[in-house]
């Protein structure tokens, strides 16, 4: 795409900002999609509401960021065009958020890892020189704090609950650990925008994240995994095999009726 600044000139910064807004919007969108699969399936009715609440928060963040990306691009694409008409290689979310829900422990582990990261991200992004990003972060920080607290409490409850829940929670942590490294991988876009005070270099969030996670795992009597591999490529549009199915389900109806309004 060729992003233009307000003077109508091609602007590499606008291009970078578009990419940045899109990737964080995609993270929130895809995780919201996964969480919404829990409706009517949660272990307790109260938890059904809690998970849907988190999904709604993330969807709200996604819409704000995708809408902003579309505006920056200046090609007339709105939030729905971006959500429903891009193909697999054009989505830039991290692999972590597209992982299947699995059992409740897997969903909680995924949430713990992501929300702890997102909280750190938003706390820094509040001071972004970009007004929209700062605004999304200001609202998002409260939401991410809540999501992190929810995931933390459940991680501890499950880790230190019964033998079965401990086993499942440990398995979930180990299964999802390889997807966490990608959260902190910085590229040129991150670095360029961070230099301008617009964005946060994600690699600077890693230590804080690691300390938080270590504390939670310890309280939960869980062992921090040592992974020999990491999964990445999401920011370059290279996703895991399950992602195609997620998109097919999410996009099929919208795509079936081109130019229709809903």
């Amino acid at each position: 795409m060729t992003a233009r600044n307000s003077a109508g000139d091609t602007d590499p910064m606008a291009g970078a900002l578009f990419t940045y807004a899109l990737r964080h919007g995609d993270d929130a969108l895809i995780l919201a999609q996964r969480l919404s699969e829990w409706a009517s399936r949660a272990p307790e009715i109260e938890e059904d509401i809690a998970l849907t609440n988190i999904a709604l928060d993330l969807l709200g963040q996604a819409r704000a960021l995708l809408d902003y990306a579309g505006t920056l691009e200046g090609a007339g694409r709105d939030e729905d065009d971006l959500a429903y008409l891009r193909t697999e290689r054009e989505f830039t979310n991290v692999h972590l958020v597209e992982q299947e829900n699995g059992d409740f422990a897997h969903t909680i582990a995924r949430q713990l890892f992501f929300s702890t990261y997102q909280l750190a991200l938003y706390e820094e992004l509040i001071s972004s020189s970009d007004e929209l990003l700062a605004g999304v972060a200001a609202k998002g920080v409260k939401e991410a704090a809540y999501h992190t607290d929810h995931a933390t409490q459940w991680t501890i409850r499950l880790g230190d609950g019964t033998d079965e829940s401990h086993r499942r929670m440990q398995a979930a942590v180990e299964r999802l650990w390889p997807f966490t490294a990608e959260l902190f991988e910085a590229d040129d876009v991150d670095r360029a925008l961070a230099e301008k005070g617009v964005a946060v270099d994600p690699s600077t969030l890693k230590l804080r994240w690691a300390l938080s996670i270590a504390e939670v795992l310890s309280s939960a009597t869980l062992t921090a995994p040592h992974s020999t591999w990491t999964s990445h490529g999401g920011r370059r549009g290279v996703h895991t095999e399950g992602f195609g199915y997620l998109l097919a389900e999410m996009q099929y109806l919208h795509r079936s009726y081109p130019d229709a309004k809903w």
Partner: protein
Amino acid sequence: MSDDAAAAREARLQEAFDALIDADERVEPRDWMPDAYRKTLIRQIAQHAHSEIIGMQPEGNWITRAPSLKRKAILMAKVQDEAGHGLYLYGAAETLGVDRDDLLDLLHTGKQKYSSIFNYPTITWADVGAIGWLVDGAAITNQVPLCRCSYGPYARAMIRICKEESFHQRQGFDILLTLSNGTPQQRAMAQDAVNRWWWPSLMMFGPPDADSPNSAQSMAWGIKRFSNDELRQKFVDMTVPQAAVLGLTLPDPDLRLDQESGHYRFGEIDWAEFYEVVKGNGPCNEQRIRHRVRAHEDGAWVRAAAAAYAVKRAERRAAEEVA
């Protein structure tokens, strides 16, 4: 207390209860109440709660495929509301001396029911609109009078629910309005959904008054304020003009305005279908329960873990206090 004295006390309590009902006042959880009143309420409130929970399935069916992010968000909020309504109602039932887990057991084993409307499938996006417009419309018609139910906790739960319900009906109407004013295929989708959901919505009000033996007692107890047929008529009268606004037809060739009474007369409902679905032979009965039971069973280890952890925490706290 001797048998005579006990009988006399019971008679006085019954008299006081009857006076309460006649004065249109509220019966509260700690009040004496006839056993039959309590049993009827438990069953009605529980089945209402079950309906909310089961109702999450046909609508939740379209969350992941919603055709716009706005519709997705609205649908998620709606389904979330239904879960919340279920909780309010289970809470009201519990004030009568039952545990939610026991009520869920009764649902899972088919001993308690839920509204038969949810035994129909949502096979297109327009079905989501039809449910919002027709099913929630019917539910509202039913629920507003319940806000004045004689049993306090149920009435208060209903007030809370009614406040949130009008948003649901408006959303369903809005989905259908957009479809009806959309492409020819969207219009056809909307009309098809209405064709399939109209008659089952009318059945939501239950059998004709003549075939409802329990209605009289419920009305005497102030639990039911209007008869099945009265509510059904109210719903039809409200809905027919709305269909005109939508530009959609209702699938009843006998539907016509009776100028004299101002009511819309409608055709014969297929009561055989109604009884079959209530009996368990509808398109989705088996699926709805299986889905619900599976969620419950899959979640057993989670609930067990939460309970176990709470015990551990309490023990640790107690140990700390002693130390």
